[in-house]
């Protein structure tokens, strides 16, 4: 997403630009911490216990006006919430895009256990309808693969699971196409 013109002019000023994105970093850490805690139905007290901290500390960390967290503290919280802490250098436009999308949905993350459970379901043939089979042959023939949320038309109109494909996948002309 391009940077809006009115903001683009302001971002030309280095001091403004860095203060702008830096403030959002504090905002996003506090916000995501609260969203993830609530997603796991944990109280501040319970998260504090898991992270070996006091409840008051969690309350402070969930305050958007706080910015003195450390990587080590965030690592502890990531472990307690069963997610990964990702620290990376990014562009200004990517940060501006994030700022336009502060919603619970965009900030929630499944825990490691939930991810593994989902992966196991996707890989286990017993849990899938019999007409699904591995996607390898289709990928070799057409050079495409389906991802979650895509729909196959022609064979079945149900959502396609990642890594699985419908029958006749090895034929040169598959009787279906992938619709994004």
């Amino acid at each position: 997403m391009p940077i809006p013109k009115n903001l683009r002019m302001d971002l030309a000023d280095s001091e403004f630009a860095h203060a702008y994105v830096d403030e959002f970093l504090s905002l996003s850490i506090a916000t995501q911490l609260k969203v993830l805690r609530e997603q796991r139905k944990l109280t501040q007290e319970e998260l504090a216990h898991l992270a070996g901290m006091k409840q008051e500390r969690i309350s402070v960390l969930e305050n958007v006006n706080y910015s003195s967290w450390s990587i080590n503290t965030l690592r502890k919280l990531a472990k307690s919430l069963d997610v990964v802490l990702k620290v990376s250098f990014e562009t200004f436009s990517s940060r501006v895009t994030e700022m336009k999308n502060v919603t619970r949905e965009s900030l929630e993350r499944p825990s490691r256990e939930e991810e593994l459970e989902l992966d196991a379901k996707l890989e286990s043939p017993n849990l899938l309808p019999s007409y699904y089979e591995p996607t390898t042959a289709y990928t070799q023939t057409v050079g495409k693969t389906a991802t979650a949320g895509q729909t196959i038309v022609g064979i079945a109109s149900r959502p396609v699971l990642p890594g699985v494909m419908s029958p006749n996948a090895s034929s040169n002309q598959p009787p279906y196409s992938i619709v994004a």
Partner: protein
Amino acid sequence: MKGRARAKIDVLLTAEDGLPPKMLTDTKLPQIKELRINSKEALRILLCKGPDPKTKNDEITLLFCAAERDKKYVPRDALERAEENRKLVLQNPELYRTPRKKDADPEKSENGSSGQ
């Protein structure tokens, strides 16, 4: 300072309800909230939702900008002045309303065709 204030206001206007947490702090007057900007100087932007009852959930009005020193506003009567401004805006909201340009469509704004 300006960058920090702008970031908070931008997120305040676009974020889902209830997010980010503790973004607005209560003041002695329930209708007026405080947006805290901490930089070299502690800036306190006093604002309210609306105040036009019809747009209370869609608009915020920045009423007064104060500094905070020793846990007190500078100027000391900042909250009272914010309340005076709120009443002033309430008398004629249209006079003070400044629609935000649609950030999502910068090219239209550049061409002057956004209609704002």
